[in-house]
């Protein structure tokens, strides 16, 4: 039973890989190396290190360590700011009135064009990179939180008002739990976006990290290296997402149960 479940979850991966392998071998396009070559190159780049480092090469540590730290910092920051601001805006139509156009202005400006601003304002590159990440990923969190906050069941809110809940109680006991599923959708979107923005930020900052590696691979036409970076990104995305879903399952247990049919 469990085996069947597990197979049901992963069968698509080998199938895709095999098709991709066949297609790329047939096409012989240098830009599309076969996955086998990509994997071999990845092993060389990142997994041929000493056993003491879990086989990770120095390069792997260089590439992933700072990147992951930036990623989590950026995502966490965006989550805190996005959820807080989203709730504030969702609760106050007045505040929403002031900020709405700014928000939609901000989220339609391509982040790379704003980087000069961040750089000019923040000088140091790590805060500037974090700002880039936060600025790039905060929008789904913000908009989903606003939506979630605005659309709490009216009777839930009325009950809270009747019993004279304080603002904090209203927030923590009613609005946040009710908006949680939507907030989580935003956080999940933002997690993958964070990876993307991390790459962009690293490219723009021109320092180390996976993004920098991707860029140099592109600049030197090392397509296998580039694909290796993409695969790592994809794997990271998958892992982060799986961890996220695990957390979500815990936090939203009530919700899943309340919404179960049969």
């Amino acid at each position, binding site marked *: 039973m469990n085996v069947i479940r597990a197979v049901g979850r992963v069968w698509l991966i080998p199938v895709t890989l095999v098709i991709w392998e066949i297609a790329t071998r047939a096409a012989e396009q240098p830009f599309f190396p076969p996955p086998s070559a990509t994997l071999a190159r990845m092993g060389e780049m990142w997994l041929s290190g000493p056993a003491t480092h879990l086989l990770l090469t120095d390069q792997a540590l260089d590439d992933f360590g700072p990147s992951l730290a930036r990623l989590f910092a950026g995502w966490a920051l965006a989550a805190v700011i996005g959820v807080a601001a989203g709730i504030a805006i969702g609760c106050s139509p007045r505040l929403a009135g002031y900020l709405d156009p700014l928000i939609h202005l901000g989220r339609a400006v391509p982040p790379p064009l704003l980087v000069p601003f961040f750089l000019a304002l923040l000088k140091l590159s790590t805060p500037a990179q974090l700002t880039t990440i936060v600025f790039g990923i905060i929008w789904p969190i913000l908009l989903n939180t606003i939506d979630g906050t605005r659309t709490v069941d009216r*009777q839930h809110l*009325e009950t809270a*008002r*009747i*019993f004279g*809940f304080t603002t904090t*109680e209203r927030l923590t*006991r009613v609005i946040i739990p*009710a908006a949680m599923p939507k907030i989580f959708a935003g956080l999940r979107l933002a997690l993958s976006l964070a990876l993307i923005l991390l790459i962009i930020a690293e490219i723009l900052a021109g320092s180390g990290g996976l993004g920098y590696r991707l860029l140099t691979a592109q600049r030197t036409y090392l397509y296998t290296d580039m694909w290796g970076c993409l695969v790592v990104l994809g794997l990271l995305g998958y892992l982060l997402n799986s961890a996220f879903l695990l957390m979500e399952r815990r936090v939203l247990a009530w919700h899943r149960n309340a919404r179960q049919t049969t």
Partner: protein
Amino acid sequence: MLEITDLVHSYGSHRVLDGVSIRAAEGELVCVVGPSGCGKSTLLRSVAGLIRPTGGRVLIGGKPVDRIPDNLAVVFQDYSRSLYPWMTAANNVALPLRRRGLDRQRRREAAMAALDQVGLADAAEKYPWEMSGGMQQRVSIARALAYRPSLLLMDEPFGSVDAQTREDLEDLVLRVCAHHGMTTLLITHDIDESVYVGDRVVVLTRSPARVAADLPVGLGESRDQIATRQLDAFVRLRAEVGRLVRGGSSTSNVLEKH
């Protein structure tokens, strides 16, 4: 304590309340009956400050209701939407008690006691979606009673429970309201219930609602499910209310449209 004067409310151009006046003294339990869709819930929402009526006045303790009054509890008609699905029954009941300045332990005790009173001692740790309709309704009654408001508004609070439970709950509400001197407005469709529970019964007309009759019950203080219901006065009053609800005019003429 509660003075509703000439209350008028329209949803858009659709007039729902057309000059309703009801008075409730401190500690009085007033039942409101009336045809479905006549505007009872609208009346209750106006008193609770949840909607701003188009016209007329609601005073609570002499003060006009311009926001949600203090010390108020409401049992909504749509009870299932007023419980928080992310909290157990006990927590749903305990949450408002923070207002009462009780610590966690005391809140929990009070919640358990209230749940016990409505016969849900076993279900304290259940979530709303693990409960039957009647159980959810009882949780919301327990929440209101545990809160010990000075003004209690109930919108068909016993609609989803069986006859036995209903009687128990009627007696419970009578007891708790009397003991704590709560002023209560109770909307019901059950004519027997209105006469059994109420100090006064207000009958509303078909939409747009006006007060068809405001009848004092006057069956004395103590009530008993069997004995009271067999009293002549009870049977007569019940018939009278029944006739009024069906659209006839009052024979007793007492207090109508004061």
